[in-house]
């Protein structure tokens, strides 16, 4: 039915949406690129002209740069490892027939609906507070000295908070994948003499590989950008300054838009390197 006429009509009608989306993406990207080559200090003189690659050099040679890269990688890697490990476990558990399955599944998904700011504050004040937090009470109950989590174990604490938020997402995707596993395959493996752990390793896990890939890719993209959790807990102190947070500090706290934009460009490059890596490692799972 697609005649020449209807095709061109379709193009015209789709054009506003396409142009809007393209503009939405291109304008900030181009502005970031432009600012990154300028000395631009809004409160201290404004636009001070072109400086070439100076911002790029300064951003990388700053003493905060490499620690922020490693903090980013630790947070992303830690959260991925925790959410996928426990996500698989939880998905298997939730797939078992049990009483109150529907309610339990909703409860498991619940953390995903809590706003990052709120959940980070809840963790900070209710659990991790060194005097009033639940953990502090627990530690004292066993006669130990309460840990002031966010300063003494700041990165693990952030990883814990973010993992708690993203575990439901991983669980949900892995659960739907597990539910699509043909039960006859598991029965066949059982008849073939595979004990439960081997059934998991040879049948369930390969079946989940594609879902795990998807969780890995999607979460990496979102985790590279986590911000609110750090902002409301440590404010970037105690080694929790990720690349995203460093850019935020450069632009808003130091009021140096040019330097921050250069950092933004580095972040884009880093995200793409991670993405290419992931595609290389696990992308072949998506072809099959």
């Amino acid at each position: 039915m697609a005649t020449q006429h209807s095709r061109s009509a379709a193009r015209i009608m789709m054009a506003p949406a396409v142009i809007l989306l393209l503009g939405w993406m291109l304008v900030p990207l181009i502005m970031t690129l432009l600012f990154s080559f300028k000395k631009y200090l809004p409160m201290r003189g404004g636009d001070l002209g072109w400086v070439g690659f100076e911002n790029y050099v300064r951003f990388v040679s700053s003493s905060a740069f490499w620690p922020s890269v490693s903090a980013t990688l630790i947070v992303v890697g830690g959260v991925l490892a925790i959410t996928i490990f426990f996500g698989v476990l939880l998905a298997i558990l939730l797939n078992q027939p049990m009483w109150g399955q529907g309610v339990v599944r909703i409860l498991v998904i619940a953390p995903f609906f809590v706003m990052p700011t709120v959940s980070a504050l809840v963790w900070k004040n209710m659990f991790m507070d060194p005097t009033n937090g639940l953990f502090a009470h627990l530690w004292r109950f066993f006669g130990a000295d309460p840990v002031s989590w966010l300063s003494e174990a700041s990165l693990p604490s952030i990883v814990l908070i973010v993992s708690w938020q993203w575990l439901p997402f991983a669980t949900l995707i892995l659960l739907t994948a597990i539910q699509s596993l043909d039960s006859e395959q598991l029965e066949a493996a059982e008849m073939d003499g595979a004990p439960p752990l081997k059934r998991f390793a040879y049948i369930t896990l390969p079946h989940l590989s594609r879902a795990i890939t998807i969780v890995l890719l999607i979460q990496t993209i979102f985790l590279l950008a986590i911000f609110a959790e750090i902002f409301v807990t440590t404010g970037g102190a105690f080694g929790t300054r990720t690349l995203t947070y460093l850019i935020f500090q450069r632009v808003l706290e130091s009021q140096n838009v040019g330097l921050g934009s250069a950092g933004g460009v580095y972040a884009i490059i880093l995200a793409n390197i991670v993405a290419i890596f992931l595609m290389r490692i696990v992308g072949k799972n998506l072809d099959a």
Partner: protein
Amino acid sequence: MGQIKLNQVTKSFGEVQVIPPLDLTIEDGEFTVFVGPSGCGKSTLLRLIAGLEDITSGHIDIDGMDATNVPPAKRGLAMVFQSYALYPHMSVRKNIAFPMKMAGIDEAEQKRRIEAAAKALNLTDYLDRRPGQLSGGQRQRVAIGRAIVREPSAFLFDEPLSNLDAALRVGMRLEISELHKRLATTMIYVTHDQVEAMTMADKIVVLRAGFIEQVGSPLDLYHNPRNESVAGFIGSPKMNLIKGAEAQKHGVATIGIRPEHTDVSMSEGLWKGTVGVAEHLGSDTFIHVHNTGLDTGPGDMVTVRITGDIQAKHGDEIYLTPQLDKLHKFDAQGLRVD
């Protein structure tokens, strides 16, 4: 090696008893077919024997040993599933090797058995492919190969041919029968298709609602059905069951006559009717005859089979005469009267 004995076996799902107490002995080397309409408990019975379902009460003996609480893998049985249940991420070779790998059989022996099975099942060229790249019949053969290499004391087949097209089904039916002749291992085969049952079985077990209706050889079931439902289930086209006045003449509640045991004439006979649909198969013609005045239940139809061809058109008058020595008689409870 491979005698299976069920002793007062029952199975309940919650409150519902799907298998009432049931006794059955399957002799070593026998090809036994469980047949019955869907929902009759035949697959459940097979899964009980396999150990995939726990029995509620009773005993299962395999080779004289009580296997009631033995896990599936230790029963020495191999199963072929309806969906084949091949492992999609493994090559055909790895699929076939899987049970041997689990059993810890050494590599050389594994290789020898895989090659033997592949040769027997015509899979040699496909060993390095994935199941997804195979046709239905080839997947079926891989599933059988995976069962063979375990050298089990009995094979269990759960409707293995129901996903294949008609032509392939006939071919695989032959292959499985030949496999049974060659291996002489006990096989239990579940199907709802009475043609598969008749052509393959040494012994047919007809099930209905969890009860065993009759156990016997195919021809035994054909000639001496124990009750009306076996009579109606075995044989194709179905036996005509006639109640009412015509049955009273023979002193019973129901008489049954198979389509192939009815003589047909265009001019004279015992029963008169009109031709409905005539199905010409070339070698045979099935004619559905209406308006016979016989009480054949809803549908008012008597089916007859004629060898060769007959010039009968829709609406023609036709006369039928049952061969009285081939008549089956059943009492009011549906049981056979001799």
